[in-house]
């Protein structure tokens, strides 16, 4: 995916593209590339304060150089980095914790997840690259994304009208058997588990259900 496509995902006017062109001379090409990447991710963040933070770091870059921002010297640069990181983390967790359900007759892999930021396309691209011979369908709240032949379509949906096959998947049973087999009781550390899978993602990782009470999520 090139940077323009990323801009399209962020649904942003080319304002920032023009602004950061002015920075080109102030840093080395590698730093400029890194800055652009962070900027694109920050733009996908839903936090309304992103524009203020981005304006501030662009000003700081003009004044003190790109390294000053990329190395997070100032509070604003740290916030900017945090905006980008939140988006990256959401994309990562969706690709990690979302489970897919094969619907063989339509050659579909179907999944659902909740996202806060504009990460839908990035998540779709991950699965489309991983499973190119399948149609990928993922619902994020009231939007459905359909990935087919290297293209992504997006529609609003009425969740009540979505009907999915109800049969129990035998591989879920196998997964649970395998998951349980990996536990080493002598090393039990639920606090660490809780840190690695924050509460809001817990419901997607069904194998954790039996620890709900113990961890205090019950």
């Amino acid at each position: 995916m090139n940077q323009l496509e990323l801009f399209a995902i962020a649904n942003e006017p080319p304002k920032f593209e023009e602004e950061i062109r002015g920075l080109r001379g102030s840093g080395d090409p590698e730093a400029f590339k890194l800055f652009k990447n962070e900027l694109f991710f920050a733009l996908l963040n839903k936090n309304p304060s992103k524009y203020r933070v981005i304006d501030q770091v662009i000003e700081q870059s003009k004044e003190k150089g790109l390294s000053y921002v990329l190395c997070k010297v100032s509070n604003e640069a740290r916030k900017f980095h945090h905006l980008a990181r939140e988006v990256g983390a959401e994309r990562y967790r969706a690709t990690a914790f979302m489970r897919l359900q094969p619907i063989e007759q339509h050659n579909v892999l179907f999944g659902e997840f909740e996202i806060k930021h504009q990460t839908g396309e990035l998540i779709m691209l991950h699965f489309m690259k991983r499973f190119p011979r399948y149609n990928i369908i993922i619902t994020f709240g009231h939007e459905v994304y359909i990935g087919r032949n290297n293209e992504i379509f997006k529609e609003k949906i009425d969740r009540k009208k979505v009907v999915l096959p109800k049969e129990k998947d035998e591989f879920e049973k196998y997964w649970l058997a395998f998951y349980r087999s990996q536990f080493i009781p002598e090393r039990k550390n639920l606090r660490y588990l809780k840190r690695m899978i924050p509460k809001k993602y817990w419901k997607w990782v069904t194998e954790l259900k039996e620890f709900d009470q113990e961890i205090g999520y019950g």
Partner: protein
Amino acid sequence: MDTEQKLEILGAAAKYDICASTAAPQSRPADQNYIGSHAPAGICHSYTPDGRCVSLLKVLMTNSCRNNCQYCVNRAGNDFERSSFEPEELARLFIELYRRNYLEGIFLSSAVQRNSNYTMERMIQTAEILRFRYRYRGYIHLKALPRTSPDLIERGAELADRMSVNLESPNPDRLKLIASEKNFMLDLIQPINIIQKQVQKGLLKAGHTTQFVVGAAGESDAELLRTTNWLYKKKSLKRAYFSAFVPAERTPMAEVKPIPLLREHRLYQADWLMRFYQFELPDLVMQKDGNLSLDIDPKMTAALKNAGQFPVEVNKAPFRMLLRIPGVGPTAARRIYRARKEHRFTNVNELKNMGVVIKRAKPFILINGKAQGSIKSIMTVKQLELFQSFTSQLAHKQAPLLLT
């Protein structure tokens, strides 16, 4: 025996193999019929209640073993239920779980049934089914069994992203105590040599690794780290894993005390210092018994021992010295090094923004010549005692500066 039961038995038999990394560059060509991809930094799809990442289908091909290793639950002398996967069965099971996004890759390992080459052949068959029939392009970790013939290792290297040989012990004498049937050089180091050649040819993009059972043979941390360092330097090892010994039921070592997990943690910290912090083996401070301190982490211990080198001026210190400051990791060190080309640091808040753990770093740094804190404020009584024992041996004038 059905698949679910096999997974329970052969999954549990493989759980002490702790490598869970799936980070690897994409190395196989793409077409429209493949399945699978690599995530450059790896992905953890779940975590066990002990906090370990579950990203690989980690099961043994079989738990029938001809060896009698003292610590191992699968040893031949044990009378318990044995089971095996057929290559076909395991490959299909993995692909179905992978399609559902439960897993990021497969870890093929096994006990030694009949002989190493027979078992290795079955593991390779599984990898071949995945690569050629299912056109799987994702991550495969293949264990090389002791005494495996070179041609099988070469075949395996064509299919896998990573291979590993578990040394279990740091040297031949220690190995004899827990696995008398294995010859350290012929059965374990020889396969590592062949694997190293494959890595040098450009295969096995995720490199090769090994694992030690910490404390099973009574070895010290110094012995483990010496061998690890040798493997990094001479055998191009990507990473060593340490697994604190936990006594398994029905083994001759069932009554032996388990090794504290903190010891394993300290070994990992020391290992990271050698891999990412430009520490050399002699820079690590060992106690008289050859072990790392359990009370203070190895980086802090090294800093205290070399108190004469601190505090350092963050605006001027060479990169190597930045890496030696407790509370400064490689990323923060790189940021400091890069940012100061265009900027002069004036306060600790700037360093905090960059990821420095200020509480730990303060006594060891100067900003524009100003000291930032005293070591007393960050240390426990025990740590302070150790520090004083180090400083009493030092004639260096700067050491007391840290205490003020």
